[in-house]
């Protein structure tokens, strides 16, 4: 499915979501509440069948945290960028998608580790790279006077 | 007899007579024991070191490398330097290891190796124990070593060591069977268990030639099972470097590690020496039926040389295995023994018995 077709079908299916044509891929922004339901539909609906989550990025925006999912359908070969923002920046929380794509389990652990985003209902939300009590280095207000040398 | 000039019987006999005349019988026997012990100890230490060096050079050649070159000419002193290093290293013992068994294990392993060497005939007259049940004795003592390995693995209080030791136990117990059966095949053929008699029986033709098909099969089986018995080559799962770090001797350091290391190479020597003695004629020179001049030339090479040439040849083949094949898994190693080698061996004994009964041999 081409990007334009995808936009049409998506608008029909998800009237509440904001759908835009990005630089390369179709970008769809959903609310945090509808994330899990939308993702479920995106994977299980035959016309989309986004079964391959290839990238999960947590972003620290000034007011809140964003999570960006890059999805691809192995069958149809179309790509969708699913975006969601958390309500809070200091204690961000969002529903987990690890029950839909297993790989999200580990990518979410990474996002939790580096950005401190809490994923609700995640079965195994532990730090992945860093020690407990380290702080969240990818946040913009992270300070580490020992290891980071400003130039 | 061309052998006479190289016969050690007169030499050993003269020493014995000389000692018996000068000292009381008890003292003379004690001195003889000491002499034999020292000679064997020196031989084993030096040959072990040489084998380590040879292994490194051969392995380097397989891998298109040079091997040790820095210490001494062509790196000849490398293993001696290594040995000195091992001697000087600190002996570290895990805190919760079983002190007694942990320290006992390397000795059991190395003593078992020494015991087995005693029956090997190096040359006419150069054999310290000439049992009439030599083969039986050899298979018996060579399986004592596994107790040391099991103890080492258990007492180190390390999971890797324990897994390694258990693998080793399962493996050696199974392959003991194949080694014994393939030797038994040759005992059926030779009609004796005495090593000197077995060698003597190959004066005209080595058993591997005169025994033809069953002997060749027995030889191949013996090589495979022998490799497995020494925990080497594709069967080195007891110390499987990429899985178990160093297997049963993970926790050993310094001289205790050196003992395991040396024992491995002595065992390699023993397996090769038994293969050379039982299948390849021991110290007997290579003879072809009617080529008198050829046979005569061969006679001029001393029997000791013959023996060691054969041993080194077999060792090379075993090294070739090690540096070519991937390692087997623990269940496959048992499958190989119980589903392949054992049935082949049993059939082979029958075949050999038929050959002997029908006198269908050279």
């Amino acid at each position: 499915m081409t990007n334009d077709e995808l936009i049409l079908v998506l608008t029909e299916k998800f009237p509440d979501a904001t759908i835009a044509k990005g630089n390369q891929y179709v970008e769809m922004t959903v609310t945090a509440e509808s994330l899990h339901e939308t993702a479920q539909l995106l994977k299980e609906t035959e016309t989309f069948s986004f079964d391959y989550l290839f990238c999960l990025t947590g972003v620290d925006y000034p007011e809140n945290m964003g999570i960006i999912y890059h999805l691809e359908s192995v069958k149809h070969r179309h790509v969708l960028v699913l975006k969601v923002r958390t309500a809070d920046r200091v204690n961000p929380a969002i529903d987990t998608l690890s029950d839909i794509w297993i790989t999200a389990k580990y990518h979410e652990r990474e996002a939790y580790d580096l950005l401190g985003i809490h994923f609700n209902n995640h079965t195994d939300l532990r730090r992945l790279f860093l020690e407990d009590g380290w702080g969240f280095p990818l946040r913009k207000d992270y300070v580490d006077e020992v290891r980071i040398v400003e130039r | 007899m061309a052998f006479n000039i190289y016969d050690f019987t007169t030499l050993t006999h003269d020493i014995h007579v000389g000692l018996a005349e000068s000292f009381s019988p008890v003292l003379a026997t004690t001195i003889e024991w000491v002499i034999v012990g020292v000679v064997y100890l020196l031989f084993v230490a030096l040959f072990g070191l040489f084998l380590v060096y040879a292994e490194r050079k051969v392995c380097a050649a397989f891998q298109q490398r040079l091997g040790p070159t820095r210490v001494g000419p062509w790196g000849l002193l490398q293993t001696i330097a290594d040995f000195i290093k091992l001697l000087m290293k600190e002996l570290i013992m895990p805190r919760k290891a079983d002190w007694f068994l942990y320290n006992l294990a390397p000795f059991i392993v190395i003593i078992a190796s020494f015991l087995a060497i005693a029956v090997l005939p190096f040359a006419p007259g150069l054999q310290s124990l000439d049992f009439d049940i030599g083969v039986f004795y050899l298979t018996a003592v060579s399986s004592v070593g596994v107790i040391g390995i099991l103890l080492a693995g258990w007492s180190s209080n390390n999971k890797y060591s324990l897994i390694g030791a258990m693998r080793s136990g399962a493996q050696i117990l199974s392959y003991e069977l194949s080694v014994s059966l393939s030797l038994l095949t040759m005992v059926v053929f030779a009609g004796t268990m005495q090593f000197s008699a077995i060698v003597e029986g190959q004066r005209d033709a080595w058993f591997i030639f005169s025994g033809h098909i069953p002997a060749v099969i027995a030889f191949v089986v013996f090589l495979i099972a022998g490799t497995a018995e020494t925990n080497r080559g594709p069967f080195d799962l007891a110390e499987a470097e990429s899985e178990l770090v160093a297997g049963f001797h993970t926790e050993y350091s310094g001289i205790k590690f050196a003992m395991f290391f040396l024992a491995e190479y002595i065992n390699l020597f023993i397996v090769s020496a038994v293969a050379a003695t039982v299948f390849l004629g021991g110290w007997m020179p290579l003879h072809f039926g009617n080529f008198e001049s050829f046979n005569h030339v061969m006679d001029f090479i001393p029997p000791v040389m013959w023996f060691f040439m054969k041993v080194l040849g077999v060792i090379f083949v075993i090294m070739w295995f090690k540096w070519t094949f991937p390692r087997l898994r623990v269940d496959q190693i048992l499958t190989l023994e119980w589903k392949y080698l054992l049935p082949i061996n049993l059939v082979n004994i029958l075949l050999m018995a038929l050959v002997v009964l029908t006198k269908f041999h050279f």
Partner: protein
Amino acid sequence: MKSFIEYIVSIFKGVWTLLIGMKVTGKYVFTPWKHVTHSYPENRDTLVMFERFRGEVIMPHDANNEHKCTGCGICELNCPNGSIEIISKSIVTPEGKKKRLIDQHIYHLGMCTLCNLCVKACPTGAIVMGQNFEHAVWDRAKLTKVLNQPGSKISEGVKE
């Protein structure tokens, strides 16, 4: 009976594949003079690195002890690791103008990742990559180098 034949065949097939493997290694073991390794410290005299090899940043000086560095600091900006520091000094030229010149071009080899960005950015071609790769020293302080030699000055004709 069929399975028995398969059993026998599998033995021979297995042994055959093992022999093929032994042939490959055997080919090499009997030609030990065709080894591919080098004896490194011994072949130092004949060892020539490729001309683009990036061993360290150096500043070539000519016979008059002159270099081309103007001390503009572009290399310092381009370095991702902060391994270059330029210390410049102000002098008054005979014409009475104030002029900034390089005092010390400090290079921390210990922090350098040899990415070539400074060399590529240098507008006058004052720094290049050297081929020396033997950087082991006993003291970490020795890895901090001053690239312009003492008493050197900028060569005539380099545009500022």
